[in-house]
């Protein structure tokens, strides 16, 4: 039987080869063929999840909620020290100095990354802005969000914090952070589907030992991770509860 692994579509493009290397490592650990299925967007990935075509997933926190509560997935591990935070940025010469300066009617560049959008909208509340009082410019990537700001097409942009920090130094210099979230508990999680109960323990042990193993450390390096931390069901339930409070 071939297992299907998939990765949240918001992974950094320069980590693509890293996920293929992880896929090979995973197949060796489980002594089972593993197929890495990558999707262009969240909608396509959710359709695959709904059709039960996913066995192992490195999931966006927003989707982790659905996977745990509706599909019976179990969290295994999360990357060490990689909490997901959001940034609202403007063009460097913008007159706006803080979120509260933003005005109704502003055009905001954003991606389809659901948790980044949710965290960013939460940070706009203090400016009395909501979905009803702003307009969105949908972008396919964070690089395009930056371009929309630099071209003046959008007045503000929502970024995954790590993606903002990963922009080229030249681009970052032409942008300015208005606000950066410090939530600390929202994070991507590696989960296994209900059919993998028998291999869960074996997989978790292998993941937690990766950093101590030469080959495993190399795989982690290709993903940009220092290691994995174990995640208990209750840790993920807590994150889901917290995100539920942030949803409007």
């Amino acid at each position, binding site marked *: 039987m071939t297992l299907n692994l998939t990765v949240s579509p918001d992974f950094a493009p320069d980590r693509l080869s890293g996920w293929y290397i992880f896929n090979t490592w995973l197949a060796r650990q489980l002594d089972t063929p593993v197929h890495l299925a990558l999707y262009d967007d969240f909608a396509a990935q959710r359709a695959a999840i709904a059709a039960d075509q996913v066995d192992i997933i490195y999931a966006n926190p927003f989707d982790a909620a659905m996977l745990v509560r509706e599909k019976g997935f179990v969290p295994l591990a999360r990357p060490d020290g990689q909490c997901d935070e959001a940034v609202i940025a403007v063009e460097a010469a913008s007159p706006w100095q803080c979120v*509260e300066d933003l005005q109704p009617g502003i055009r905001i560049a954003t991606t389809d990354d659901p948790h980044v959008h949710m965290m960013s909208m939460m*940070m706009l509340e*203090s400016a009395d802005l909501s979905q009803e009082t702003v307009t969105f410019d949908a972008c396919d990537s964070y690089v395009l969000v930056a371009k929309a700001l630099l071209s003046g097409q959008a007045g503000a942009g929502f970024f995954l914090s790590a993606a903002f920090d990963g922009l080229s130094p030249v681009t970052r210099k032409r942008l300015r952070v208005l606000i950066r*979230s410090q*939530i600390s508990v929202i994070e991507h999680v590696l989960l296994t589907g209900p059919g993998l109960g028998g291999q869960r323990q074996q997989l978790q042990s292998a993941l937690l030992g990766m950093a101590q193993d030469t080959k495993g450390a190399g795989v982690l390096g290709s993903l940009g991770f220092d290691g994995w931390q174990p995640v208990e069901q209750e840790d993920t339930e807590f994150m889901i509860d917290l995100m*539920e409070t*942030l949803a409007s």
Partner: protein
Amino acid sequence: MSGSAAATGEVVREQLLTYQDGSERLATISDREIPFPDGRLIVSRTDTAGVITHVNAAFVEMSGYSEAELIGQPHSILRHPDMPAAAFQDLWETIRAGNKWHGYVKNLRKDGACYWVYATVIANLRHGEVVGYTSVRRKPSRRRVEESARSYAAMGGAQAT
């Protein structure tokens, strides 16, 4: 009793707060407001009786209490006397009915200052049973704070019931 702190000009009063369980506390209340920290969330969890079981670092920082002082205390330890009891009655009725509660809340710090939050409270369901509640507070809009302050003043505020 009321007076002014000469150095800062803040208005300070002492007020006896009475809680639902009958306990009382003489609290120093000042008009000094601490701004909500940008980008952060204040998070706590309670058991089903409203006793605090978890607080995050922002909660500790904003409340002025240590974590050890908070864990095991009723959540009403933060209740500001300017808040009407009806607001909390609505909160409990809403979450006990299994619904999400939102509201603007003025909280009381240990040092008597206050901080406004936009709070959301949900029930923590595990295997179909409510095992506690999670409360998350975020930075409120100033306009909504001012509206809420007027509304709560019209309701007369309340002792911390």
